[in-house]
């Protein structure tokens, strides 16, 4: 390296812009410092969120023993699993319909419609769902989890759709042509070639949808009936009363679960063929 004969010309680098590095550092600090503090204080031995009194796992034990937390955690998982699964199935079909068909009128509009929930402010969706579901609840007298599952499914679809579509678009369509050429019926082509090859996209979509559902507050808060707290809405409720590091402990667990899923998601989506 030292005796390289010709000096490589320096490419354009934003590092030469004044203040760029400082701003970058500050941004990282602003993003991660609060989270670091939150995680640190989940291990606090004392009750305070401000004074460090030594390391302990007491808040984790307490949260785990809290029946309300258990209840909310199970509901969260159940909800995220149901909604993500249904959303992924719908998104898979939508992705196939928008990438594996000849051009049909309205294709672009369908694409826009699928992604629209990403653009609508969450609070608007929440209020709209509240109004509709309130009417339905009064009318039918039915107040099961079905409303939450339906609502979560609706906003999870575009998140599941994007990685699946991306996968299908990078897949070589001549593979499917080759399968047909080798006597595979359309169904066999799908089962033996398209599906196995798009599988990483489907799993990625499922995980993304799962994480999105797991940490939703706004829509859940508006749609839930009495006694249907999920972990995030439970924590929101707690914050209105006494705040203990128990909330930090629950947050840390959600954070770790989310981080694992998102890491797997990136692994899956960056792997090719």
């Amino acid at each position, binding site marked *: 390296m030292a005796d390289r004969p010709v000096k490589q010309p320096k490419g354009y680098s934003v590092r030469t812009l004044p203040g760029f590095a400082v701003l970058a550092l500050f941004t990282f600090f602003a993003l991660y410092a609060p989270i670091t503090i939150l995680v640190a204080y989940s291990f606090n031995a004392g009750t305070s969120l401000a004074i460090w009194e030594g390391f302990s796992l007491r808040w984790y034990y307490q949260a785990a023993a809290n029946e309300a937390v258990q209840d909310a955690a199970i509901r969260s998982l159940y909800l995220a699993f149901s909604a993500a699964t249904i959303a992924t199935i719908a998104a898979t079909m939508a992705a196939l319909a928008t990438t594996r068909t000849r051009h049909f009128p309205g294709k672009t509009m369908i694409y826009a419609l699928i992604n629209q929930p990403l653009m609508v402010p969450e609070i608007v969706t929440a209020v709209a769902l509240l109004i509709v579901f309130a009417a339905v609840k009064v009318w039918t007298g039915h107040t099961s989890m079905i409303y939450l599952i339906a609502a979560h499914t609706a906003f999870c679809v575009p998140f599941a759709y994007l990685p699946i579509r991306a996968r299908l678009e990078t897949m070589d369509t*001549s593979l499917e*042509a*080759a*399968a*047909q*050429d*080798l006597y595979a019926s359309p169904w066999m082509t799908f089962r033996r*070639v398209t599906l196995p090859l798009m599988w990483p996209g489907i799993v990625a979509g499922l995980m993304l949808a799962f994480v999105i559902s797991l940490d939703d507050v706004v829509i859940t808060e508006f749609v839930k009936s009495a006694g249907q707290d999920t972990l995030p809405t439970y924590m929101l409720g707690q914050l209105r009363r006494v705040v203990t590091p128990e909330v930090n402990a629950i947050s840390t667990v959600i954070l770790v679960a989310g981080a694992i899923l998102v890491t797997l998601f990136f692994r899956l989506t960056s792997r090719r*063929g």
Partner: protein
Amino acid sequence: MDATTNTQDSTTDAIAVEVDHVSKIFRGEQEVRALDDVSVGIRKNEFFTLLGPSGCGKTTLLRLIAGFEPPTMGAIRLGGRDISRLPPNQRPVNTVFQNYALFPHMSVAQNIAFGLEMLGKPKAEVQKTVDEMLRLVRMEELKNRRTGEISGGQQQRVALARALAPHPEVLLLDEPLSALDLKLRKDMQIELKRLQSETGITFIFVTHDQEEALTMSDRIAVMSAGKILQVGPPRDIYERPAERFVANFIGESNFLDATLAGGKATLAAGGTFDVHVPEGVRDGKVSVLVRPEHATVHAGEAGEREIAGTVENVVYSGEATVVHLRLATGEAMKARLSNAPQGGEAAPETGSAAAVTIAPGAVTVLRD
């Protein structure tokens, strides 16, 4: 190989694929006439090549025969049966794709077995055929590898084995060698010929490499702008091209003015030659073709049956020397001389007067 006397072996001349007045029009923002009233019959057990420049419709014709696109007009028949509207999975035709299109989630052996499995062949038979195919393309050792873990030439052979395994009536190959380097390409050319004669399957081969077409084919169809200009054995295509485009596309050419009368052509530059006259050409002014290697040059004045010219340029290229001349008529002409060992007869010098001799039978009348 006389068709009329060959009554015993009727398969030799039986038509495998008949393309009957086929046109293909792509309607997008602009209409593209990718195939324009194409008719051709491809014989059984034939190595048939579609040759033409980029965008002339070679891939489109293959895709129509394979069934990936329907023809806009016309019909495609396989062994006399109209297959124009059958989906690809119901046609006994297999394709070797330009990018191979091997299934990345399957092993080499699983790739080769795919077609047989889809046809519902019993397991034992699938196994047996796969082993046979692996042996045929010399890939036994790598049968359990993933297709991403083998070299380009090996992928090429797997693609071939996969397409041959179901023993199709016709094998379509779309520029299968274009991704390979020169050495591998020469080896694969020989391998392909061997596979074709061993399996007895009709091959329809696409290339835009004229040398590849000439060395491998039983017959060649030269295409341009969606039309087939000429079909014939390599020797006919090279020595008796019917049109200027065909002559130009294959090999080096001299185009000279001449007058045709009663099967003889008299060059404007001098000399009268017995010629082959393609259909539809009448007596009168014509263009003729002389291949540079069918002309010789010596320094000095032109004698009888020779054409006088001036040497403009002499280019040495190893095995041959190309002499560029200007004839008395102002026409340009090239002659390609094989090089003798050093000390042998030297080519004439630039600027000197020279005489050109054209070999008998080397003058071909062109349609345009």
